[in-house]
């Protein structure tokens, strides 16, 4: 494949294109704002939001749990889209963004998977149940962890980018199948435990707490991805400088 050879030989030049001023401070103002919003949302949830009548204090986990899940989905969607973009355009930035979003996604998935059981134990009476959404989240965690391990196991930059993009796309294809498996399973063997009740309407002050957590969490997610991306830029710059040094 002649295009592949051209692609490969252009890589040193591509890394040289990363200019020195691209290496900016990792945690900028955006991260500071996100942290402040997060703290404010916590204070609001803990001290200024009424305790739910049926579930008690455990219900407050919801304010962190659901926004964390949404941030995780956001991150993983970025991985999937950037995987396609990378294989299409062969732009290193897409690969770096996928890498950053993958790592941040794993953090948020871990938050979802730890806050979930904490809520489930008092409300459902069990830490874990093989419900469709729980199982899917668990396997998203496995897939994301596998994705990051794969990245760590390859030294060659373009090979790492291609392999992880292929895995990113296949994982996106897999998710409907896992979902379908658990869904079929669930209809064959009905679960004894009722799913989390959907509230048609939430009291306004609870809704506001949820929305502020949602905003803070999304902001934190984006600022973390940005910080991780900038770290990637700095790392690649350093590698490029090192290999140039070796050349001389």
């Amino acid at each position, binding site marked *: *494949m002649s295009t*592949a050879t051209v692609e490969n030989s252009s890589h040193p030049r591509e890394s040289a294109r990363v200019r020195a001023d691209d290496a900016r401070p990792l945690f900028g103002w955006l991260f500071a704002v996100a942290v402040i919003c997060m703290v404010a949302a916590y204070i609001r949830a803990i001290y200024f939001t009424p305790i739910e009548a049926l579930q008690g204090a455990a219900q407050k986990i919801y304010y962190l749990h659901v926004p964390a899940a949404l941030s995780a989905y956001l991150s993983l969607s970025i991985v999937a889209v950037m995987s396609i973009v990378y294989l299409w355009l062969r732009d290193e930035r897409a690969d770096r963004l996928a890498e950053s979003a993958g790592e941040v996604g794993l953090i948020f998935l871990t938050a979802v998977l730890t806050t979930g059981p904490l809520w489930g134990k008092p409300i459902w009476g069990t830490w874990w149940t093989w419900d469709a959404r729980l199982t899917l989240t668990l396997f998203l965690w*496995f897939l994301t962890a596998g994705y990051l391990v794969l990245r760590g*196991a390859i030294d060659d930059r*373009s090979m790492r980018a*291609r*392999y992880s993009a292929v*895995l990113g796309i296949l*994982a996106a294809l897999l998710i409907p199948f896992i979902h379908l*498996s658990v869904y079929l399973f669930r209809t064959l063997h009905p679960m004894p435990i009722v799913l989390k009740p959907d509230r048609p309407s939430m009291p306004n002050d609870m809704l506001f707490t949820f929305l502020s957590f949602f905003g803070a969490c999304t902001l934190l997610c984006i600022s973390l991805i940005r910080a991780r991306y900038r770290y990637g830029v700095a790392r690649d710059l350093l590698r490029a400088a090192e290999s140039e040094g070796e050349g001389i």
Partner: protein
Amino acid sequence: VRPPLLATAWLIARKDLAIEFRTRTAFFAVLVFAVLGVAIFYFAWDVTAVSALDLAPGVLWVIFTFSGLLSLQRSFGVEQADRAMDGLLVSPIDREAIFLGKALANLVFVAGIQAITIPAVALLYNLPLGATLPILFGIALLAAVGLVAVGTLFSAMAANTRLAELLLPMLSLPFFVPVVYGAAQATATLLAGRPPAEAWPALKLLIAFDVVFLTACTFAFPFTIEE
């Protein structure tokens, strides 16, 4: 003019199978592993609490998954000696043909293991297979196609990484979930003596998985071997 895709794939598969047939070490090792696994399961089994019919589908599909992984491991491992992979890559053949050939050889390998393990499980666990045996082989074949499609691709990828043996199961197992689920459900339905029509949703899942991932992995493979 390049030779047709499937003819080339068959050549590659025949090469791999010839290597395997002449050495026979891998097939024998994986077969022993599979039967050993079946036997080990017996010791973790409370005969009075769980009936063989309930246990067998799980045993079968866990064993197939792991012995499948073992057999897939060597698929691209054999190309590493003397950098034989480079020979394949410089040959005037389509990359897709290399993938399909490798996958076909793996399919024959895995199906061979299954053909011996299924009767072995039936024998050791006293399963009344009888008329359901052909259907069971059909399910096994459908599942094997899915396992092999994903596994062959990941085997090609894992062989080039620092973690080779460790990475293949880590990447593959999440992808085996729908396959194991579909196959085990269909097997359980059959063994319980329920009408085969009840196994249809699980089989549809298997077929859809095979179609989607055989296609996706065939197209993805060339991206993993650019040099």
